[in-house]
């Protein structure tokens, strides 16, 4: 009889303990992300850091691209398509210039004075003919509205992280398409790129870029307008 009552008590007690645990969970905040509408990084919850050098979506900084087609050749799945042509002899899109990448992420495009010498980062650098101080996307805009005042700047060499020399561009790229639905993220094209303009985006934007249409996954990096060559021009040239 003692065992019988003890059993009843134990049964009721354990059920109540269980119910207490579950009702606590009932009032906990939920952990669901409504994924396509609400991203992890928007909620600032459970965001894990993406490692440096993560192989995400391919991005080509077309201003630095020299159209060498090495990436197209090395791609194992042929997801890169490049077509381009040389300009007529004597023509060029812009003069040679230096792209100075600063350590704080900024970029200055201009000419480093005394370029013939070997770069010495211990000294101060004087940059003349500055056309752009930010991203290379605005190169053309800056070229047009170039005022005299801010075209020369002196910075200390310790600020500079690297300097890329852009040679005079004597070609244009009609097509620089990367089909990300084919890409296998091997990263060979980024390794082979001589100007390091083809990179893989290692942020969340480079990872979550799913689309509803497969054709939306073909990214076009050819910036025809960069070369001042829009469709009317080509039509006239054809005539």
């Amino acid at each position, binding site marked *: 009889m003692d065992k019988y009552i003890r*059993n*009843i*008590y134990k*049964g*009721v*007690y354990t*059920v*109540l*303990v*269980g*119910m207490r*645990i*579950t*009702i*606590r*969970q*009932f009032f*906990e*905040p*939920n*952990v*669901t992300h*409504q994924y396509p509408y609400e991203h992890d990084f928007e909620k600032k919850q459970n965001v894990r850091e993406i490692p440096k050098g993560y192989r995400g979506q391919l991005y080509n900084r077309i201003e630095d691209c020299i159209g060498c087609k090495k990436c197209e050749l090395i791609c194992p799945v042929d997801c890169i398509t490049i077509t381009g042509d040389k300009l007529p002899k004597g023509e060029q899109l812009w003069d040679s210039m230096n792209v100075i990448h600063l350590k704080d992420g900024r970029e200055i495009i201009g000419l480093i004075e005394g370029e013939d010498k070997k770069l010495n980062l211990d000294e101060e650098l004087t940059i003349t003919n500055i056309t752009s101080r930010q991203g290379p996307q605005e190169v053309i805009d800056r070229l047009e509205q170039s005022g005299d005042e801010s075209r020369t700047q002196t910075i200390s060499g310790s600020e500079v992280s690297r300097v890329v020399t852009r040679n005079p561009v004597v070609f244009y790229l009609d097509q620089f398409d990367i089909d990300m639905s084919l890409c296998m993220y091997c990263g060979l094209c980024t390794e082979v790129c001589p100007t390091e303009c083809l990179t893989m985006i290692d942020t969340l934007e480079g990872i979550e870029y799913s689309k509803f249409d497969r054709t939306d996954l073909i990214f076009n990096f050819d910036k025809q307008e960069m070369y001042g060559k829009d469709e009317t021009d080509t039509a006239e040239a054809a005539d």
Partner: protein
Amino acid sequence: MSDFFSDGFFKNINLQDSSNWATDFVQDVIIPRLPEAVAGHFSVELGTVIVMLVCAGIFVAVVPLLPLVLVLAERKVAARFQNRTGPMRVGPWGTLQTLADGLKLIFKEDFIPPQGDKVLFLLAPYVIFACSFAVFAAIPFGQDILVSDFNIGIFYIMAISSVIVMGVIMAGWSSNSKWSLLGSLRSAAQIVSYEIPLGLSILTIVMLVGSLSMREIVASQDGGIFTWIIFRSPFTFIAFFIFFISAIAEVNRTPFDLPEAESEIVAGFHTEYSGMRFALFFIAEYANMFAVSAIGVTLFLGGWQGVLPGYDFLGGLPGFVIKTLGLVFLMMWLRWTLPRLRVDQLMNLCWKYFIPISFFNILGTGIWGLIFKEDDVWSIGISCAIIYIALISAYAIAGRNLARRPEPQPS
């Protein structure tokens, strides 16, 4: 035709003398307004039948909406217990999810096992569906919202809800599938066993109230929360929990869902059903769940009577529905707390614990009725005091246990 209705068939039933609201309605409202030509052929009995058919039609059309809401509620509550959100895509906050599911089920193939018993297979869902809906006929939702006031109301409910097991066995046997048969056999064993403590705990109320009529049972609880039958005597307090747990077993819900244990026997008795027939089982299950909760509220928690005497607070139809949904929530809570019982544990609980305790309850209620001839302040006060002391002492013992052994923390 009217002669047949007035003289022959309905003579024995004698609707004229009963205080049926449908008869009154026909006599007072419809008959005086009929045109002369029709009125001659129109009898009160025929009118009563028509009015009742219309009411039943409305009822059968409206009550399936309940499972529609309950299925969504179940999924949402289940999701909350697991820190999820539940269905969110169809409609605002996923409120149209059940409709979408129903639509999907309608368009699915209606498969009939070729080796099975076709007639029984087709009949089984309707037996279960009809029986679980017939229960609603005797539940008083409000003071005047009662389809039929039987003088044997609770007896009728017990009887009609027992027929459900027939449908379950029909479904299980006619499917010609071992899973279905196993499920239905388990269901039969379970429902037949748990009918006994259910009936015995209802018997304590019948002893206390002295009537089987649902309306009178509710009418006897009209003095506010302390005259609700659950607090009338310590024995009815125990009886409520036995009733509730047996009712969970009766409607085959977790932790008593052996008949449809998905990890053991696929889906139990409705394994072979698909499409709309499966939807009928599903609707019947949730209608049942609501029905037993409504019966529990009617019998123990004051029915549509409010918390305070003379006030409408938590009374009427809204109060009734709130109380019933509270019990439904308790069922869901238990579902996500307890694991499924084994067959022997199930039978053990019923035959070794519930039935002896129920008999003890009946004995106790009888003695209680002898001591306190009428329900007054004294009897209810002593009853509440006993319940209070028992709960406090149980809590104290539990506290001692808690101090000794730390509660397992959720990981």
